């Protein structure tokens, strides 16, 4: 297996049909991801980050080009491309343990009962949630729910872990805590990760490469930044690190100078008016 061509996105394009004709969300997205790499997708809202992620997940089918994972084309969703959803998406009627168990049952028919149990518990341990395994999702905090969401995804033993703004809805302290956990897990398991984020610090801290996307419609990859910082990374020591700050600067200047959202009032008004009819499209392309 070619380790450099673990996951390949080739000429990926996405059009959504609307009553006024096709809406082009993505064009010509080309990306090669190495095994074990941590990739962040960053860009302004509506730039199609989520669309890219959904195409890789198989939840959307690209209208142009395609995705190849380990020499197999991606056609449908599957547990080898586990998704951590922004709002955790745990089944509210199942306990924490049962939520993870569902994923384990689905992905490993070969395991016997004791082994399955051990695997569920191992993954809960990994995200430090063993203490709440019998609680319902409604009984734990948002950060804890997201941890369980990660445990569920990891329990599928995915080749690629797809994370759609996993920490977006959390407060800053909880987010920092979870970022550290995620770095730990990534170091231990070496999964390939694609993560969508809005947060520049988060992107630089966690990623091997940061993929910066241009504004939509017809969004595509603008620049790719290599983050050459040694691991393990520590947010406090990095705060004064020139290389770290250089990376931050690069991303910030891409977002706020090169791809500054020029949105004058008239445009904004128009957008609001068309927002209702384009709701479906927006929902799918908004990141």
């Amino acid at each position: 297996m070619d380790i450099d061509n673990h996951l390949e996105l080739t000429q990926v394009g996405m059009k959504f049909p609307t009553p006024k004709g096709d809406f082009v969300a993505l064009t010509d997205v080309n990306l090669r991801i190495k095994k074990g790499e941590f990739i962040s997708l960053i860009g302004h809202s509506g730039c199609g980050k989520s669309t890219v992620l959904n195409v890789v997940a198989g939840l959307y089918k690209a209208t142009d080009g395609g995705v190849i994972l380990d020499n197999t084309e991606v056609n449908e969703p599957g547990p080898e491309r586990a998704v951590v959803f922004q709002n955790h998406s745990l089944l509210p009627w199942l306990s924490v343990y049962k939520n993870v168990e569902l994923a384990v049952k689905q992905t490993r028919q070969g395991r016997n009962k004791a082994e399955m149990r051990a695997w569920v518990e191992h993954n809960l341990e990994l995200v430090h949630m063993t203490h709440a395994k019998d609680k319902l999702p409604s009984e734990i905090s948002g950060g804890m729910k997201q941890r369980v969401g990660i445990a569920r995804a990891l329990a599928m033993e995915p080749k690629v872990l797809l994370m759609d703004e996993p920490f977006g809805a959390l407060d800053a302290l909880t987010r920092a805590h979870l970022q550290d956990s995620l770095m730990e897990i990534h170091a231990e398991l070496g999964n390939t990760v694609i993560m969508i984020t809005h947060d520049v610090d988060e992107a630089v801290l966690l990623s091997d490469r940061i993929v910066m996307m241009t504004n939509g419609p017809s969004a595509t990859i603008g620049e790719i930044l290599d983050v050459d910082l040694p691991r393990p990374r520590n947010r406090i020591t990095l705060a004064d690190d020139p290389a770290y700050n250089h990376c931050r600067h690069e991303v910030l200047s891409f977002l706020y100078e090169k791809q500054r959202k020029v949105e004058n009032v008239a445009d904004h008004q128009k957008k609001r008016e068309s927002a209702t009819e384009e709701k479906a499209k927006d929902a799918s392309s908004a990141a």
Partner: protein
Amino acid sequence: MIDSTNTSNVSSIFSNVKSKFSGEKMNKLAMSFILPALGLAFFVLLWSLVAKNIDTSLGQFPGPSQVASQASALWQEHKAESEKAEAFYKRQEDRNAKRLAQDPSYEPKVRVYTGAPTFFAQIWTSLYTVSVGFVLASIIAVPLGIACGLSKSVYAALNPIIQIFKPVSPLAWLPLVTMVVSAVYVSDDPLFSKSFVTSAFTVALCCLWPTLINTAVGVSSIDKDLINVSKVLRLKPLAHVITIVLPSSIPMIFTGLRLSLGIGWMVLIAAEMLAQNPGLGKFVWDEFQNGSSNSLARIMVAVITIGIIGFLLDRLMLLLQQKVSWDKSVELR
């Protein structure tokens, strides 16, 4: 006959009282006990006043006291009838024992007591009939509703049928059901009487729709993220329905079931009147045809009984929903 202005007066005065009281700060006791009791007392008072002024060809419209005395009369009749039945079985047993003692080869004959069904026996018949119709309807409606909710094509195909048959009155179905049952349900030793089958089917036909529609809506409005979870996990269709679809749509399914049971209970009374199924509907019809001076009071007893049972059935469904639903924190009403 009571005329409609009288009833609307009653209800408007009733709501006035309610609004006057709810504006003030009431403690829990008042809200849960004193006010309902007050409302009830006021209603009974008004009823007795109004009843005195209505003269019908069967005498004065029954007030609360006549109705209460007829209720106890019905209870006495029931007691007397069951004593008679007991005595009948005792005699039969004694007779058979005697014959057996004389002639050991004698095969004892056991006959069923054939006295007229009492009011309470009729309540049971009604409850049994409505349960059969309701269960039958639910067995059809819930899976069909799930299919409609899961697939837009199935929904598009079934929607016209649902919309056309939903508003049809049970009285329109009944002649058709009666004729079909008489033609199709032919047996020398029928397990159920035809009137029972007709009533149960009519109930089923009318209480199919709320469950079907509510289930379809519940299933089609499942959180999209949960559906994506199911896709990523590659849940098979049956597993998808059991682990994702059913738990998410339980509240809507039960809303439908409760509406259905309510409709079924209403429909049943009408169906029993026409099909002559020996339940509460037949009781009302027979009393009406009978036309004695007690008939109206006895019908009023039936009316109140029907109301109370309908209310209890709804509570029962609510309890069941609480038992089945995963979300215990949601207030059920």
